[in-house]
C-alpha cells in the first residue's frame, strides 16, 4: 500500500511510475518487499530491483535479514522506521539515512500503527525526490473520510518535518 501511495505521489510530480510487491506465503505478517521505479520516461523494465538507489525499511525487525543491503548502489539512501535518533552505518554503500519514528507518529496522529503516510512525508523530505505537496495531493485517492484523511495528512507532514537525516 505504501509503495502504491508513493507511486501516486510521484505521478502527481509528473513522473512515470511502476511499483509491485513480491511476497511468499499468503499470510498476514509475512515479509513483503515492494519494488518501485520512477522516471521521466515510461518504464518498460518489469523486473525486480537488484541495485536500488534507496531502501525503506518499515519493520526494523527485518534489519537482521542478511541480504537486506545486497546490491545497493554506492551513495544510496536508507529510510528506517525507528524511534532511535542515531544509527550506525549498516553498509558502506549507504551514505545517507533518514530516521523517523513513523510508528510513534502514526499512533499519535492516526491512533493506529500504520506508518505508511508518515514514511512518505519523511521520504520526500530526506530524498528531495518529490515535494510534500505531491504526497498530500495523492492521499485523497486512498483515504476516504475527511477525518481519516486529515489525520494521515498530519502524519505525513510530521514525517516530513521530523525525519532525522544523517550523512555518513
Amino acid at each position, binding site marked *: 500500500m505504501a*509503495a*502504491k501511495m508513493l*507511486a*501516486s505521489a510521484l*505521478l502527481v510530480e509528473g513522473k*512515470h*511510475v*511502476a*511499483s*509491485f*510487491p*513480491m511476497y511468499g506465503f*499468503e499470510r498476514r505478517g509475512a515479509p513483503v518487499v515492494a519494488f518501485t521505479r520512477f522516471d521521466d520516461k515510461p*518504464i*518498460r*523494465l*518489469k*523486473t*525486480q530491483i*537488484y541495485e536500488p538507489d534507496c531502501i525503506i525499511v518499515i519493520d526494523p525487525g527485518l534489519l537482521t535479514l542478511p541480504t537486506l543491503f545486497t546490491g545497493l548502489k554506492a551513495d544510496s539512501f536508507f529510510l528506517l522506521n525507528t524511534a532511535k535518533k542515531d544509527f550506525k552505518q549498516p553498509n558502506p554503500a549507504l551514505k545517507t539515512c533518514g530516521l523517523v519514528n513513523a510508528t510513534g507518529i502514526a499512533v499519535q496522529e492516526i491512533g493506529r500503527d500504520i506508518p505508511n503516510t508518515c514514511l512518505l512525508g519523511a521520504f520526500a523530505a530526506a530524498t528531495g525526490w518529490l515535494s510534500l505537496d505531491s504526497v498530500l495531493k495523492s492521499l485523497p*485517492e486512498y483515504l476516504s473520510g475527511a477525518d481519516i484523511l486529515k489525520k494521515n495528512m498530519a502524519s505525513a507532514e510530521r514525517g516530513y518535518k521530523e525525519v532525522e537525516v544523517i550523512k555518513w
Partner: protein
Amino acid sequence: MKAKKGAISVMMGNVVAANAARLCRPEVVSLYPITPQSEVAETMSGFVSDGSLNAEIVEVEGENSAMNVCRAASLAGARTFTATSSYGLVYMYDTILETAGFRAPVVMVNVNRETPGIHAVSSGQQDMISTRDAGWIQIIVENNQEIADQIVMAYRLAEDYDIQLPIMVNYDGYYLSYLNEEVEIPLQEDVDAFLAPLKDQPKRPRIIPGKATGAGTHGMEMGYVEARYKHWAAMDRVKNKVDEIDKAFGDYFGRSYGGQIEEYKMADADIAILASGSAAGTAKEVVDAKRAEGIKVGLVKLRLFRPFPEERLVQALKGKKAIGVIDRSVCFGWKAGPMAVELKSLANKLGTMPILSFIDGLANLDINVPHINRVVDEVNGAAKGKPYQEVTWIPLE
C-alpha cells in the same frame, strides 16, 4: 484519434482489468477468487454492489461453475466476463472446452500462474500453455495499459460475427497483476463507441425462451467433423481480425500494439529474440542497450498465441541469422519451451537459422536484464557459427 482523454491514475493490474471489463458492459459476470487474480473478482463484485456495473452477478462455489454460468448466459445472448488463474483455469477445463466448442464468445482474464503438480503461488505461463488446445483465442499483454486496451479489443474480437470464439486475455501474475502503473482508463462513451459496430452485425445464434433452439448439440460422425472444422476455420480468421481491430483501436484511441505481434527494431535486425508478457518490456530495454553496443538485435513480442501468428512471424523473422525464444513455461516431451517448439515447426517457411530455446521466469523467478543479455549473447554467437545449446534452463545454469 477520436477518443477523449481518460482519467490517468496509478492503478493495480487486476483493478485495471476489472475497470476495463466494467466499461464493456457485461450483462452476466461470475467469478471465483484465486491468487493472483482475487482483486479482479473483488473489484467486479464491488462494481455490481455499488451500481457502477449493471450486471447479473452469480456467486458460485468454484471456477468450474463460474465458466458454466458464463457459457450458459453467453448462449442466451448475454455479454459475459470472468477471470481466473492456474488452479482455477484447470478446474474449469471441461467447461472451457465446451465454451469454445459451443462458440460462446466469453471474455476471460487469465492471470498467469504456475499450474498444479508442484504447488506454487507464483508467476509463470504454464496455465495458459496447459489450455492451448482448448480452442480459445489466447492473447498475452505486456503492461497495465495493454491490459485495459486488450480487454476492450477482446469483446470486439470475440463477438465478431465471423469469429464467435471465447478469448483468454493473459497477463503475468505478480509482475502485472499487482503492478501499480499509471494507466489511462478510457471513457465509457468511447468504449461504447468502439464496441458499437458489433450491434450492426447479424445477431449471433442464441437460446430464446419459447423457441426450439439447441445449443451445443451432440456431434455424430460428420456432424462432429463439420462443427470441428468450422471452429478450426474460425480460429484461422482470428489472425487478420486481430490486426484489423488493433488498427481500429489505434485510430480511435491513439494507442496500438502491432496486432498479432509487435516488431521492435526488427527491420534491420540480424538476430531476433521472441518474448511475451512483462518480460517483453524488459527485453525492449535490453535490445536498446545491445544496439548501443553495436549488436543489431530486434525483438518480436508475441501477443497472439492462439491461433499461432504464423504468417506475421514468418514475415518478421525470415532471413534473420538466429533467433532466441524466451519461454516462461515448460513443454514436456520436447527439447525446447512451448513457444520455441511452435516456432521451430515453421522452419520450412522461416529458413534453417538456429532457433535457441530459453526457459526462464518460472515460479516468480525474475526474467531480468542479465538473463536477457545472456540470451542475446548466445543467439549472437549462434548467428556467427559458434556452437550453441538447443535449450537452456536459465535458472539452472
